[in-house]
């Protein structure tokens, strides 16, 4: 078992250095964390002060990686100046090894996508609550905004946290409605958390009252950028137990966010549009999203015969976590084909859909046998890795 512990402040500079290693991606960084933290039981500080040969030999890092780490190490003193300013203003860092790190986020994003650190300000306990995300266009229709308001209201009544992205339109509506209905919210920033000045001013009361948590995964001083806004979407989806789409166009942030979410096997609820509405909600439903009514209730009966996977809606396990657990359980050492798995799992999915899901699971590896893909659980060293994420 891996023992999680809260970050010591002294480690902050190291986490900042590790989390933003240039062009490493989440998976590489997380695999390294799993190795030193989980397998070798080293603190991040101890890891950074290992000699370079150990990095190469024990951690199998290549020249470029070693040189990246060496560079990161020289920046630790500079990071200290930033970190001091950061802490003195009440910001906090939650590394992935901390029990305060959102379990929902970890479970949804896994090692492949989970950011190594969360930068937050506000009531961290919010991350432990049941949560929903409401997403949609910046220039949303009246219908979409009303839907957003209603979903936020229902969520707030049920003490579910509303996660949103602080963009105009649906995001802003979701936040303001949650506040209005005395609910709790997470604002996921498309920028570094230290550049969100005006927001901290505008939501001052809510933050100090413990109703709002501001969260960012980017370098604390990073200014807003379109790429960051895109990169933020998976975090919004990842932080939420349920995802509601108020309105989407056929391209843009919401569209690609939902498509990405579906690809990752997330269950996503989309507002069933009125017949005269011009948006891509129906297209998303065709792609596998679940239509819901004004109150977020699933519309089990399909209005649209073009929905390809109508049966899947009712039979899909209620949450991905339990599906994953089942997938893990069906293996008994022998690689299985998608078809075999469907039977064993008692799913009425298409093999294609299951193939998609399996490829997303980091504890599964693909082995080719003749012309078909077979799946099996990753080797022993790999399975211990995943414990940080389960």
């Amino acid at each position, binding site marked *: 078992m891996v023992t999680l512990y809260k970050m010591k*402040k*002294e480690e*902050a*500079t*190291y986490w900042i250095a590790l989390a933003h290693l240039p062009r490493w991606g989440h998976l590489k960084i997380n695999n390294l964390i799993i190795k030193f933290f989980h397998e070798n039981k080293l603190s991040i*500080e101890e890891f*950074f*002060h290992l000699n370079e040969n150990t990095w190469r030999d024990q951690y199998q890092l290549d020249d470029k990686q070693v040189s990246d780490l060496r560079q990161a*190490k*020289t*920046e*630790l*003193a*500079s*990071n*200290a*100046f*930033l*970190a*001091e*300013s950061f*802490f*003195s*203003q*009440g910001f906090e860092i939650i590394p992935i090894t901390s029990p305060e790190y959102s379990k929902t986020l970890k479970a949804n994003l896994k090692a492949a996508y989970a950011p190594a650190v969360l930068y937050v300000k506000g*009531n961290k306990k919010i991350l432990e609550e049941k949560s929903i995300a409401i997403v949609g266009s910046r220039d949303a229709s009246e219908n979409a905004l009303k839907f957003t308001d209603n979903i936020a209201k229902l969520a707030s009544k049920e003490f579910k946290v509303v996660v949103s992205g602080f963009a105009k339109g649906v995001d802003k509506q979701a936040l303001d409605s949650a506040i209005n209905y005395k609910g709790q919210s997470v604002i996921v920033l498309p920028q570094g958390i230290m550049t969100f*000045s*005006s927001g*901290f*001013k505008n939501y*001052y*009361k809510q*933050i*100090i*009252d*413990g109703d709002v948590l501001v969260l960012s995964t980017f370098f604390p*001083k990073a200014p807003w950028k379109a790429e960051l806004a895109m990169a933020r979407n998976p975090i919004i989806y990842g932080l939420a137990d349920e995802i509601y789409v108020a309105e989407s166009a056929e391209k843009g942030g919401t569209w690609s966010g939902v498509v990405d979410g579906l690809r990752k096997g997330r269950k996503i609820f989309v507002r069933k549009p009125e017949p005269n509405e011009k948006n891509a909600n129906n297209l998303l439903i065709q792609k596998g999203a679940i239509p819901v009514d004004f109150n977020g209730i699933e519309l089990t009966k399909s209005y649209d015969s073009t929905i390809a996977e109508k049966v899947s809606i009712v039979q899909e396990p209620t949450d991905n976590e339990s599906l994953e657990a089942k997938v893990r359980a069906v293996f008994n050492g022998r690689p299985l084909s998608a078809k075999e798995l469907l039977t064993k799992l008692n799913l009425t999915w298409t093999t294609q859909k299951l193939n998609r899901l399996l490829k997303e699971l980091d504890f599964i590896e693909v082995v080719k046998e003749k012309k078909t893909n077979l799946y099996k659980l990753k080797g022993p060293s790999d399975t211990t890795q995943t414990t940080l994420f389960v």
Partner: protein
Amino acid sequence: MTRQEAETILERTFKLPKFYDEQWLTIDKILKGEKVLLIEKTGFGKSLCFQFPAIVFKGTTVIFSPLIALMRDQVKKLTSLGISAKCINSEQTPEVNTQIISEAKQGQIKILYIAPERQENSEWIEATRQMNLSMVVVDEAHCISVWGHDFRPAFKRIINLVKLLPKGLPVLATTATATKRVELDVAEQIGNNILTFRGNLMRDNFKLFVVKVSSEDEKLIWLGNNLNNLPGSGIIYTGTRVDTEIYSKWFEHLKISSTAYNAGLDADSRIAIENGLMSNKWKCIISTNALGMGIDKPDIRFIIHTQIPQSPIHYYQEIGRAGRDGQPSNIILFYNPEDRKLPEAFIEGGRPAIKKYERVINTVKSELLGERDLMKRTNLKQNQIRVIKADLIEQGIIREVIIGRSKKFEFVPNSQPLNTKAFEELRNAKLEDLENMIAYVETDKSRMRFLCDYLGDNSNHTFNNCDNTGEKKITVSITPEWSEKLQNFREDYFPELEVESNGSNIVNGVAASYYGVSNVGAALHRSKYEQGGDFPDFLLKLVLKAFRKKFGQEKFDLVLYVPPTSSGDLVKNFAVKISQVLKFPISHNLVKARQTKEQKVFENGYLKTDNVIGAFTFATPNDIKGKSILLVDDIFDSGATLKEIGRLLTNFGAVKIAPIVIARTVGGDIV
């Protein structure tokens, strides 16, 4: 690096032959990436302990120092040795600071001095991202400790910074003044297994005297009579800013070469005085304790205190500036039993009332505010707000955040309630320190030994360097001749009113007296608040004398007076008399445009300014055009009223507005 190798570099770079053993001890540890707290007396050569490693290291060394004068001084020295050193401080223009920051980012600066407050500046934080830092130095490290004599809240953040620095990055904290308690506190706060080196703090080239007196007059007279007989030049420390002014005017009156210095002067004046001090331009500089810390002048030959400091550690710190060259230096402390009231008031009044703390907490809870708005909302003085703010930050109840470019204060959710016990503990410790200071005055044993013991410096040295151990005691005798000189001075000395500002034709005026320093205040109080009738004639005589001293035979076109808020016609009647004597016509047309409150109910300048803005008008503006005006009032405090009237009259075309008042208060709030 061996000591020999190091000394070769030392010779080449610093033109010094070798290190003292104690210096090398520290430098050796620093070169190995360790953290060291170094306590050594002034003149030991602490600076070399970081300057030398700094030039050996590849990157930039950052030195946090609270003293701008010291930064300037050291940068000048290093530059003359060809070492690239710069300082960033609030007295340089933002452009200059930005330029230095960009040089630092390009690695062109070896040694960079900055004030701890710079850590609150986001441009600086950005810059550190691109700097290659090799060492951090905390100068005057006693400022970290509330148990020291000069606790500074900004140093708290420096401690937090030092704790965040990576293993292996050398840190040096230095101080010349730390009791055992302060030493342990500093070491504990920095943590990370910091090594402490404590040197020997005694100074046997000092001649220590205590002069017991029974009045302020005795101090003035002894100094007037004897200052020019003391060898060399030196510093006189007074307790208050007003005293620096009074002593320097007294010396001016006696034609003794001197100048006054305080933290309220603008940067240019201060630099000019610091330079003058270095070149012995004056016999003495009269200063509050703002001057001299860290100034590297080897031959300050005397240090005189006209007011007892708060504690022996304050005293040791202040006299430590004398005789760095090891030559004999006279250290004189005046003591009138009355004098303990000032430090006592300072200790007792050092913290505002608890309900003021609560007012601030409640205000911050409801709104995110900057200092200025917080002062307005709570009606508290700036210095009170600053004390409260620092305490609340220290206790983790509020924190300072940067919103855009401005600083605001926010409430810390779930923070502990205000802990007033900590205040009491601190207050008691300070009162005990004051008793120890008085014990220094009263001791009949070696005074140097007394100070060394107090600082935790256990040396076995025998001292024969004070008026208890061989030096002749100083006593004061007052002759009628000197009493008369002092009397003449008192009747010929009038405080200036500094009200000049851009865009207004108001000029600096004059007061007949300070409010609390003479019988003037009492007379005003009787008339204003005890139905004592018109201001008495001696005040009129004094004001007229002040007028002649300041304005000579100058003619004014018109006398105006500030319309009253609540004290009836006192000022009007007084102005009428002035106009009769001086034969300038008077006008009664300066009136209130709206009701105002009495200025004294407002604790700070912002609210005073708000109270009077647009509050006056002049019924017949044509009477003003092209005129020079003498503007009369009774008491001058923040100057907000006079400035507001100055603006109004300027707008109506007045060419000169000269204010004259009966008394000016002491310790008014600075806007």
